């Protein structure tokens, strides 16, 4: 299918699903950043002894999401 003059792209199911997955991954990455911020705010409201462990856990999740998003988006 010619989208722009001279550029032909085969729009397939894989392409559509692939783009949607990539967008969802980016959205999840954004949500994980929001979660980090929210965790910091929650910890400020109630300063519990294990707050730091939870902070680490949320950061690990963010790092994992970032790496996997990069892999999926670049691949």
């Amino acid at each position, binding site marked *: 299918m010619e989208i722009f003059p001279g550029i032909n792209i085969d729009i397939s*199911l*894989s392409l559509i*699903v*692939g783009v949607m*997955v*990539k967008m*969802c*991954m980016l959205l*999840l990455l954004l*949500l*994980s950043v*929001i*979660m980090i911020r*929210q*965790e910091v*705010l*929650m*910890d*400020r*409201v*109630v*300063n*519990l*002894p*294990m707050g730091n462990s*939870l902070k680490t*856990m*949320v950061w690990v*999740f963010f790092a*994992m*999401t970032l790496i*996997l998003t990069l*892999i*999926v988006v670049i*691949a």
Partner: protein
Amino acid sequence: MPEIFDASKKKDKEDLVEVKKLKDSGRYRSHWGSLVVTPKIKFESQNNGETIIVLGRRHFVTNLGWMALICFAIFIPFFWEEFPLIAGVNDNVHFSLIILWYLALTFFGLMNFLLWFYNVYIVTDERLVDVDFFGILYKNINVTQIRKVEDVNYSQRGILSSFFNFGDVVIQTASEQRSDEVFGKDGEASPFTFEAVSNPNEVVRIISELMEQEEKEEYEGRIK
């Protein structure tokens, strides 16, 4: 000369009969628990010299819903190739879909855990604090003085709450009262509703005892 009254000798509220009972039982020390007696923590608007008597959150059993959902959802990718839409995509996209699925599940679990963990109520020797987080973008913190509390009651509904001994503690304050028929927009009978509290009877007793003590202090202060 015998000492008749000394207002400066404020009774230590950590030594309330009900608090002592809970402390002696030794079951309410863990910060992961649903009810923590005299925890060594701090909260945002804590005054100098204000002592936290009880910290509580929803009973752990209330998490079973989302935990069961996650346990079920973990196995969905094993069967989703049966659906023509997913069977039609190539291996790379299929792999990306699996990654997205498990990341989203982890996010859902983490978020629910954080909301459970930080949605707490705090009973101090002066005030009641109800910290509510709804989703990841909205928080609501209610604070009231114990002397403004007019009525405390609790309700247990359903099999699980009777079996695991948890319920809603409703605290009516002088500032705002809602009847059972007219619930607030949040569905709570009062802004100070401690939902699904573990051992609600103990929490009610502690608050009642604090109210009595506060009244006594006010009275003693007045007749001095």
